[in-house]
């Protein structure tokens, strides 16, 4: 599903963010990428969403070699991946419904289908009663659930979650992780980037540990040990 081959990323002038990363993530896998701040976790997400280009190596997502992806192809790639961010990135002047619908609107999906699918997805994430609320009218946990609904609504094969619980309390954190596990059970490949030890250790899924831009361990049912 995701294949990183000898990936390096050097930021101008000489900051090495990633060095010789080899990572293969299979379909339907749940992988946690862990490490301390500055380890290079978010840079991997940015390379997968074509926000950044790898300095060296090859990047393959869903069978598509995006190493030298063209600008006009970037939107097409992003529509096939769902991404959840720590800062949510919901559009503040759109309602929960409109925020989720926006991900389908950019894909050119009909209004009829949008009106049919969006309430269903919001029901899955537990927001069926808050369709008409604006982001500032709901809690942090609900905002993140809305962001997950938006990332899922166009049925991507891959969901990238970049520190999705970074701004949430422990109760909401648990809810979000449970939701991600449920989504994974439906067959979506999940890449979770976090530096939260408790989450990773509770998951008992594959753990890739990064340190100084390099993979220092990659274990099935691993633990986050510093």
């Amino acid at each position, binding site marked *: 599903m995701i294949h990183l081959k000898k990936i390096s990323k050097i930021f101008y002038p000489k900051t090495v963010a990633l060095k010789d990363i080899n990572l293969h993530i299979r379909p339907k896998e749940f992988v946690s990428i862990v490490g301390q701040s500055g380890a290079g976790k978010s840079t991997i997400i940015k390379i997968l969403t074509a926000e950044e280009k790898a300095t060296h190596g090859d990047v393959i997502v869903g069978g598509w070699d995006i190493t030298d992806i063209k600008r006009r192809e970037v939107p097409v790639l992003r529509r096939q991946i769902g991404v959840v961010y720590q800062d949510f990135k919901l559009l503040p002047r759109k309602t929960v419904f409109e925020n989720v619908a926006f991900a389908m609107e950019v*894909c050119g999906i*009909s209004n009829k289908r949008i009106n049919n699918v969006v309430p269903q997805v919001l029901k899955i994430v537990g927001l069926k009663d808050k369709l008409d609320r604006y982001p500032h009218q709901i809690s942090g946990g609900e905002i993140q659930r809305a962001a997950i609904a938006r990332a899922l609504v166009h049925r991507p094969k891959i969901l990238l979650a970049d520190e999705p619980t970074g701004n949430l309390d422990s109760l909401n954190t648990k809810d979000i992780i449970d939701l991600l596990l449920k989504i994974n059970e439906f067959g979506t490949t999940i890449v979770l980037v976090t530096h939260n030890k408790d989450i990773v250790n509770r998951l008992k899924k594959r753990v890739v540990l990064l340190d100084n831009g390099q993979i220092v361990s990659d274990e099935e049912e691993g633990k986050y040990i510093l």
Partner: protein
Amino acid sequence: MSSILRVIKFATQDFFRNFWLSFVTLTILVLALFSINLLIIFNMVAKSAITAIENKININVYFKPEIPEDQVQTVKNYLQSLIQVREVAYISKEQALDDFKNRHKDNPKILASLDELSKNPLGASLIVTAKNTSEYPKILEYLADPQYNNMIESKNFDDHQLVIERISDITQKVNTGVIAVALIFTIISLLIIFNAIRMAIYTHKDDITAMKLLGATNWFIQGPFLLEGVLFGLLSIIITIIIVYPLIGFIQPYIGSLLQTDFNLLNYFNQNFVMIFGLELLGAIVINLLSSYWAVSKYVKV
């Protein structure tokens, strides 16, 4: 097609949901356009004031009392044939005497001394109005020909020469000044509009990044902002018209009484409505589109 409809929906949604930002942006646009219209009004009032003063200037040519009427008429015909001359009015000896008596009706001594004279001591006169104040010296040059000059007792041009020179000077300075002020105003207005639109889009920069990360194309993101720019242009021109017309109605009577002319500012704006507001609309839309496009382009590079 659905994509175009969505762009329209997003543009109108954003306009109303960011009401205060839209209101402030619109106010700045209206103020800029209103300033331009004020300048147009000032320019037209200044020009009409100068024309009104110019119309009041003329040369009085006084003929010797013994010059018969037919000779005065010959000079009149000659003057009327000159391209520099707009109008020549003839005042007969009798009319001149009546006017004189009328002017001094409260002075019995002057009237009594007039009665003692056996014949009319006043000559006929011509009042010459030029098409342009700068033409008077030329007209006087023609009158200096001995053929005419010998018939003339006096010309009052010297009284007006200073005024004429001052008026010509003021006209030229006002014209140059108006062009300079118009240029400065236009540049300032453009910069204000440009900045207002950029500021409005700056507040959306995080939204633009989020849209981009969701896979929206540049056109899908830029479309609503460009459309909003057009909407701002249209609304600002409508509001400007709503403000400018009552203002013209209010100041028109003052212009009429102050300048003593039949110049009608309202008619001027009515006759040049498409030219004035059409150009302003076009300018506002073009600058809105350019600034929107430029501002959004900065944030879509994600």
